[in-house]
C-alpha cells in the first residue's frame, strides 16, 4: 500500500458513521471496555453495600494524597498525549516525538507509584488471604476489600502498561518518520486508548479512594 493510500485523510469513512474504520473499531473496543470496568466497579459497589463492615473509611488504609498526586500525573499524561496528536496534525515531527516520550515517562511513573503503593500495602497486611502469602498479620476486612481493590486497580494498571508498550511502538514509528499531517491515524487511535484509560482512572479514584 502506498503512503498516499494509507493517509488518514484518504481513508474511506464507514458508511453512515463518517469516521474511518480503524477509529470506529477503536471506539467499539473502548465501549466493550466500558462494560468490562462496569462489571468490576459494579461488583465493588454491590459488595460494599452488602458488607460495609469489611471496607475501611477513605484514607484509613489507602494513601489518598499519594494517589491524588498519581491521578494528577495521569491527567498530565493525557495532556501530553493530546499535544502529540495536535503536533502531528500540524506536521510537527519533533513535537510528536517529544510529547509521546513525555507521555511514556508519565505513564511509567504512574505504574511505578502504583507498584510502590502495592508493596507498602502488602507489607502493612492489606492482602486477601494473608496466611497464603506469609504475611504476619492481616488488616481486618482485607479479604474482600483487598480482593476488589487489587482486581480493579490491577486491571487498570495492566491497561496503562499495555498502553505504554504500544506507545513505544508508535514512538519508534514516529522516529522512522512514518506519520505526517496527512497520516496520523495511529497516533489518534493511540490517544483514544490512552485518554480512555485516564477516564477510567478518574472514576476508579473517586469510587475506590474517596467514597
Amino acid at each position: 500500500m502506498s503512503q498516499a493510500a494509507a493517509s488518514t485523510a484518504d481513508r474511506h469513512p464507514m458508511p453512515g458513521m463518517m469516521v474511518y474504520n480503524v477509529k470506529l473499531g477503536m471506539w467499539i473496543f473502548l465501549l466493550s471496555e466500558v462494560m468490562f470496568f462496569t462489571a468490576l466497579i459494579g461488583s465493588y459497589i454491590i459488595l460494599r453495600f452488602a458488607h460495609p463492615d469489611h471496607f475501611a473509611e477513605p484514607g484509613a488504609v489507602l494513601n489518598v494524597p499519594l494517589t491524588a498526586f498519581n491521578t494528577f500525573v495521569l491527567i498530565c499524561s493525557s495532556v501530553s498525549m493530546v499535544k502529540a496528536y495536535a503536533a502531528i496534525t500540524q506536521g510537527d515531527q519533533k513535537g510528536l516525538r517529544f510529547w509521546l516520550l513525555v507521555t511514556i515517562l508519565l505513564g511509567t511513573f504512574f505504574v511505578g507509584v502504583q507498584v510502590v503503593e502495592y508493596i507498602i500495602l502488602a507489607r502493612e497486611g492489606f492482602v486477601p488471604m494473608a496466611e497464603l502469602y506469609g504475611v504476619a498479620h492481616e488488616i481486618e476486612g482485607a479479604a474482600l476489600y483487598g480482593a476488589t481493590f487489587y482486581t480493579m486497580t490491577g486491571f487498570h494498571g495492566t491497561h496503562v502498561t499495555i498502553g505504554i508498550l504500544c506507545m513505544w511502538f508508535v514512538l519508534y514509528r514516529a522516529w522512522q518518520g512514518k506519520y505526517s499531517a496527512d497520516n496520523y491515524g495511529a497516533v489518534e487511535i493511540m490517544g483514544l486508548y490512552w485518554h480512555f484509560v485516564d477516564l477510567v482512572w478518574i472514576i476508579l479514584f473517586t469510587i475506590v479512594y474517596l467514597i
Partner: protein
Amino acid sequence: MAGNGQEPRYFLIWFILFVLTMAEVGYAFLALPQWLLATGLILMALWKALLVALYYMHLKFEPKRLWILAASPLPLAVILVIAVLTEF
C-alpha cells in the same frame, strides 16, 4: 478533530481537571452525610470524565452518530449494576 481547524484549549482543560481533583480530595474529608459526599464526588468525577471525553478524545468535534455510539453502553452499564444489585 475540530472541524474549524482551531486547537481546543488543552491546558485550560488540564487546569480544570487539576482543580477538580484537588476539590474532590478536599471535599472527601468534609464532615458531611455519606449520601451528600458520594453524590458530590460522583458528580465531580463525571464532570472530569466528560471533559476528557469531549476535549481530549475530541468527542465534541465528532459526528453526532459517534456520540450516540459512545453513549450506547451507558444504559447497559446502569442495567448491569441494577440487575446485580437486586441479587444481594
